[in-house]
């Protein structure tokens, strides 16, 4: 506290402010309660259940690490973990490669605000169709007798149909990139749109070439957008199971697919282990992405 002389005065001045702050905590009570009941408790429950004893048809609350040992000693499950990581990285890279130039065009080169909004809305169009229709529509496109193979053969680029296009990891990557690309484009375009055009003009006036300006001004200033986009894409891709199931012909198993299968066969403890691993993985990915840029400072 302060010196005795002004200690009393500052106490008196502080009190009403404190009271207002305390009473404002009521505002977050509904949200906090909701999250506690439906997010924190289920997550803790999941961790708890992952240590229960799993028998063929039932589960008992006797604590054991058996499910965890089984998970990490099984080639299928560890393989699914690696597949998840691989597909996540490939899709992340693909959305960045496809999304960044798009965002650059929409956010920086289109000067008309209305046009750039229209272009962003165009990116959202895939979401106007239902997930099932969207994913199924890929089949006649990528299939053995699909549009792409017919076109390639008609142009005599290939003689036999490329089978790897559908029901493979490639088709999963193609499908996911298409669906999640907009989550990369949006935040990056937003950050690029906030760059003061004078700053770029100033860099040009100081003699920097286009690539220099891109590398030293545009890219660093758009990094918060890249990180936010990457977090969106990562969280969604890591938790994916439907696209993988529909486009890989159940050949590509992600952690999400493992959980679906285990729950389907009432292996709750196993599903819980996979769930904990997946949740931990997401937390790790988001935390490390946030380390790249101090979002509090940038946004």
């Amino acid at each position, binding site marked *: 506290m302060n010196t005795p002389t002004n200690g009393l005065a500052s106490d008196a001045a502080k009190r009403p402010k404190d009271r207002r702050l305390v009473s404002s905590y009521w505002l977050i009570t509904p949200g906090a309660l909701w999250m506690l009941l439906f997010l924190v408790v289920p997550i803790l429950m999941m961790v708890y259940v992952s240590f229960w004893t799993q028998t063929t048809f039932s589960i008992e609350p006797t604590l054991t690490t058996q499910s965890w040992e089984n998970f990490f000693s099984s080639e299928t499950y560890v393989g699914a973990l690696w597949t998840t990581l691989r597909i996540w990285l490939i899709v992340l890279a693909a959305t960045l490669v496809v999304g960044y130039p798009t965002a650059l065009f929409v956010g920086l080169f289109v000067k008309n605000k209305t046009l750039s909004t229209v272009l962003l809305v165009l990116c959202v169009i895939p979401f106007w169709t239902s997930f099932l229709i969207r994913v199924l529509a890929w089949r006649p496109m990528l299939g053995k007798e699909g549009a792409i193979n017919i076109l390639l053969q008609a142009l005599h680029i290939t003689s036999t149909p490329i089978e790897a296009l559908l029901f493979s990891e490639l088709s999963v990557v193609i499908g996911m990139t298409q669906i999640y690309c907009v989550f990369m484009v949006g935040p990056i375009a937003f950050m690029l749109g906030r760059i*003061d055009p*004078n*700053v770029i*003009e*100033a*860099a*040009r*006036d*100081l*003699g*920097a*070439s286009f690539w*220099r*300006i891109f590398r*030293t*001004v545009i890219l*660093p*200033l758009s990094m918060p957008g890249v990180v936010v986009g990457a977090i969106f894409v990562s969280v969604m891709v890591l938790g994916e199971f439907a696209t993988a199931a529909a486009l890989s012909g159940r050949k590509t198993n992600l952690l999400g697919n493992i959980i679906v299968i285990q729950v389907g066969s009432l292996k709750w403890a196993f599903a819980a282990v996979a769930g904990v691993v997946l949740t931990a993985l997401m937390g790790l990915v988001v935390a490390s992405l946030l380390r790249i840029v101090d979002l509090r400072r940038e946004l």
Partner: protein
Amino acid sequence: MVSGAQVDLRSRSQPAESALCLEGVTRRYANNVVLDAISLSLPSNEYVSLLGPSGSGKTVLLRLIAGFEVPDAGRITMGGKRIDDVAAHRRGIGFVFQNFALFPHLNVFDNIAFGLVHGEGAARIDRPPGRARVADMIALVGLNGLERRGVHEISGGQRQRVALARTMVTQPRLVLLDEPLGALDANLRARMREELRNLRERLGVTFLHVTGSETEALAMGDHVIVLDRGRISQFDVPDAIYSRPATPEVARSLNCYNLFTGQSGADGFSCTHALFATSRVKVKCAQPTYAIRHDLISFAPQEETSLPDRTGLLAKFVTSEYSGSTIRHFFKVGTGQIVEVENHLSHRRPADLEPGRAYSLTWAVDDAVVFG
């Protein structure tokens, strides 16, 4: 602007050497002529202010000189060499943006060093002279100790200095400043005026300072260019601009003249409600206008008899505006036009004026500027 205005662009004390020449520079947007055949010769090693109302084309003129835009016609030369088709960064011209346009992700040092690190023939910074030049510039603008600060962690005045240093480090021969004090608060603006003038003197280059404020233009410029509707109305030293505006538009943009339109004849200048005596001196102009400065008018109760060599009119007192050292009185003449009278309070006590009462406003015949 009126076509009849004959403007002598080299009326006084024009130095022989010039930093930049414009000949017939024209810029159009669609069918709109923004700059109409601007010809201009900027003296070297001087502070030149460019005054114009918004929409006069002053920012476009600056961007043309900088090389951000290309003129539709005309020549721009520097030291005898044409620069219209030279890229902006190779012209040897620096540009200070209105909002400073600092790189928000770089600290003070890296902002100032940007032109040396990333400019053409890059990596000049790694050589000791480059680093020393940045350090010299930081010392020159008085930013020592702030090198590692982010540009959002310094004050507005310091940001202004970073913007200037960032441009100066590339050693331009001419620096263009686009309303450089516009983003600062009034207090700081007054201090930065002096600082900018001093800095320019130490650097020995030409500054072309665009502003919409007549007081700023007059206070800062060794010469003042007045731009109106895409043409140069006057280019002269500040006191000549102030006391002898070349066109009614210049007088209007100075914001210190009462202007009356009417007819100029042998017996004087007649407008709707008055006939002013005129001296022989007249500025040629297609639109006859009579201009008298706010601070050259004196007023007296109506009954007083007029003195020789003075002219004037009758007007009703409306209100006064007190602003410390000066007081402005507003009078209304029969046409509804407001006539402003400015009194400096160090010279006299504020007068007791009665709203609605008629007073006779008078001024010396020779003090008026007559266009006709």
